[in-house]
């Protein structure tokens, strides 16, 4: 399967948040108790029960007193996913055929390392500390459907499809900034912007964590170290032999 992507176009988003409700419904996620904090935006952050949310931003505008921006936020589904690299459990985070970074709570050990490794800080956990984040509706996409948020989006602000095609369409429609196109091996969630991503509060220069990168490069040293030491010990035993004084006997029954 070609790599698929979710294209977010905040220019088309009307902040209706059908995506948030649809996500909760499809994934059977519980509600989070919130208060009004002096904004339409809620919940205040992604949670293990909120795989996506719309960030509401009021920014200065040349034409009016302000612009009101609505920016979908969720796991970016990195092509080179630090979360997958750091995950100690086999199969807890895996790459789906469509390129999404998907989780298996049954295999998640709840160590939350992925949360620390995520360059965007977008991974959240459920009450049992298991990874709980956008999976681009793995169950739906596997069955040939679009993610629930995309299905619900009334304005076309969320689109799901062939990553290259979506990128080309966005460029053709005049979106000069395709955020995520080249970052981290290319993200599976792309943002079509006409202005700088900074205006939309996007992370500048997301970077793969050096610690994870470096360790991945040297982790085979563990095998090497173990193997070499065992081998050296054996060699020592054969070549130099045990530390035995003359006349000393070793009896098993001692």
């Amino acid at each position, binding site marked *: 399967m070609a790599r698929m992507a979710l294209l977010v176009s905040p*220019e*088309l988003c*009307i*902040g*209706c*948040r*059908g995506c*948030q*409700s649809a996500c*909760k*419904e499809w994934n059977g996620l*519980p*509600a*989070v*108790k*919130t*208060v*009004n*904090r*002096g*904004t*339409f935006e*809620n*919940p205040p952050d992604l949670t293990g029960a*909120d795989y996506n949310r719309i960030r509401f931003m*009021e920014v200065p505008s040349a*034409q*009016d*007193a*302000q*612009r*009101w*921006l*609505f920016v979908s936020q969720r796991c970016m589904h990195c092509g080179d996913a630090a979360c997958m690299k750091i995950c100690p459990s086999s199969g807890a985070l895996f790459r789906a055929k469509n390129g999404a970074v998907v989780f298996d709570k049954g295999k998640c050990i709840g160590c939350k390392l992925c949360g620390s490794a995520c360059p965007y800080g977008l991974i959240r956990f459920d009450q049992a500390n298991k990874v709980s984040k956008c999976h681009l509706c793995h169950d739906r996409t596997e069955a040939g459907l679009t993610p629930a948020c995309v299905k619900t989006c*009334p*304005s*076309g602000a969320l689109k799901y499809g062939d990553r290259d095609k979506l990128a080309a369409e966005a460029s053709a*429609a005049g979106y000069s900034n395709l955020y995520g196109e080249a970052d981290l091996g290319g993200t599976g969630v792309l943002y079509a912007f006409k202005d700088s991503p900074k205006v939309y509060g996007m992370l500048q220069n997301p970077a793969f964590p050096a610690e994870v990168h470096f360790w991945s490069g040297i982790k085979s040293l563990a095998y090497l170290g173990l193997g070499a030491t065992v081998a050296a010990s054996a060699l020592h035993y054969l070549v130099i032999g045990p530390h035995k004084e003359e006349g000393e006997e070793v009896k098993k029954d001692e």
Partner: protein
Amino acid sequence: MTNHWIDFRNADVILVMGANPAENHPIAMKWIARARERGAKLVVVDPRFTKTASKADLYAPIRPGTDIAFLGGLINYILQKGLYFREYVVNYTNASYLVNPEFKGPGQLEGLFSGYNEKARQYDKKTWSFQMDEAAGVPRKDPSLRDPHSVFQLMKQQYSRYSLERVSAITGTPADKLAAVYQAYASTGRPGRAGTELYAMGWTQHTVGTQNIRAMSIIQLLLGNVGIAGGGINALRGESNVQGSTDHGLLFNSLPGYLSVPTASMADLAAYNDKNTPKSKDAKSVNWWSNKPKYMVSYLKAIYGAHAKKENDFCYAWLPKLDEGMNASWLMIFDNMIKGRYEGFFAWGQNPACSGANSNKVRKGLAKLEWMVNVNLFDNETGSFWRGPGVNPADIQTEVFLLPACSSVEKEGSITNSGRLAQWRRKAIEPIGQSRPDAEIMNELYFRVKGLYRKEGGKSPAPILELAWDYGAPGPDGKIEKVDISRVAMEINGYYLEDVWDKKAVPPKQLGKKGALCASFVTLQADGSTSCGNWIYSQSYTQKDGKAVNMMARRSKEDPTGLGLFAGWAWAWPVNRRILYNRAGVDPNGSPWDPKRAVIKWEALAIDKVTGKPGLWKGDVPDGPAPPLAAKGGKYPFIMKPDGMGAIFGPGLVDGPFPEHYEPLESPLQANPMSAKVRINPAARMFYTAQGGLPEDVFANADPRFPIVGTTYRVTEHWQTGVLTRHLPWQMELQPQQFVELSTELAGQKDIKSGDKVTVSSARGKVWAVAIVTERFRPVMVMGKVVHQVGLPWCYGWQYPTDGSGGDSSNLLTPTIGDANTLIPETKAFMVNVQKA
């Protein structure tokens, strides 16, 4: 709507004023986005920089309640700059008609039209008439539009007073923004340019609500925007089926299909028909309402069945009658209730304790009832009014019943959207618990009431005992055991009760066979040979090859016109016409003004299969089959008007034939800047006068205690008063609490920060709310003074969530006054104060 949702994509300029579709009609934004991709301009005029404004190419702020000033300025702009579509205006509107020379407008009468009776707050409309050509029996015209008594010149005169500067001073819209909006919208006056207007309760819920829409109608007629793709005047309805319920007689003064409810003076059917059937002597006018007697008789046949006979006036006498001048609309119901005039009350699918303007009055009114039946999905603030804030249950004698209704997905039926599209929906799941579909509850109620009448008698039992109620198989006790909703739909469509013939045709042609479902309202008769529950829905459930066909259940996705008409998807009234007045979208020869977006098109040489004669309309279902105006037998386009013309001069309304700016009941101004002597709509009914009134009905104009303009609105996450959505934790997560939006300037003055709890109060009540301090709400300059504005949603109520964290309805603040024509409450402009709680 004259047009339909998908049609927004065909517009070149979309004016959103009095609506916020991005918040309240999200799907609309899909089509607006498609239009913008084509290069269309979205223009938003709103007191607040809304979600819709965030998508706009041009945004202009406005003070609530000054839309007519804004639109009057646009009319003036169009006329002064000659940007109107002259051929359209001359041929298709009454602009050329000559008005009674005694008619005088607000420019001459200091804000009033001629014929005003101050004491009665009413107009005598005698002078609001046309000069008649006695011989032909049609109005006199001046196609040059120069006669000083012509509608055109009178209009020009009245709106010459709406200069850019004056309008800006009234509305608070900066002059440059005003000019930019005018320029953008007036650009659609050329053929090949389409402008549409989307409005909702932001226009209707004013003392001048009807005139707001009239003002826009005038603009659309001047620009030739009615009857074309991407044009029209489009009401975005406040509920998914409010169009359907209005069509089916929701309003106190209309029977299904907008037939007037008879009044006491209309003693018999002949008197009713005489009073309600418009006449025209103009051969080119279709005057469709001349068919009204057919629809009325067919309606009587539908509801009284075999009992309705010619001999007994089709049981016309059984219909309830209004007293002369009686108004039974929303505000009056609760005014009567608080005055102790009602014994009982059915709150069916509604929550007036939160949705009703001046909710405190409503809540007090409920306490005057002996009994109340609350039919709803959940208990709500209405059903629980007796334990509401400040109420001691021991003081309340009202007995309250809750009948659990099921939701729309638990039943089958039709729903009619704003675009008049009736769509059939199937049941998704069985009703939960003891809940039942509304029809089943009504069925139960009907047979119980009928049984009581049968047993105990009573005043006038016949209309109940003999009501046609044939919606399913009766059980042993005669009661229908299960309502078959399709049979209701079929009754609405109508049946041929006899073989029906077109006797005028040579040779006579059979229109319908006895027992069959009616083909359309064109075949309805006034002699009792047809029945039809709602004439405009005739054709929604027809018959093909002896089988019933539910047209509303159709699901074809074909769109041969490419305009998004989708004629095979469900069914739109009337007769599946998707764009109303489409004959105005073509020139007098039948060629579309805009060939690229032809809704209909006359093909003079094509052979009409039905008549066998040349001449055929292609495209949408035309407004009548007659040839175009210039052809032999041609007709005027506005077939629902007696004279066939678009009404620039509209004498039908009670408050003036042209819209005029009046201030809201509560405004920051002492006087109306347009006319010092007449502050508010002079024909609006006053509940509180200089002589006094109920303390609940007080208002405070230009009162230093309430210096801030308030308005109300909705949020995407909640439905109406939130009865359905406040019980959904997911929705509460998104919008948990009552809030008030206010400007950074006002917040600074009051030392309020975003997230602070504040109290918003009016002369009638107060609510707490969380402050959202934002640049999106700006103070406006009105008559040289800074006026602050705030807005609150009305979707919260004290009863749920039970911890009270949601807040209470902002309708506790709104006043008791309504539009002069419809009495729809003025909840979109009132005066408040805001204080840190």
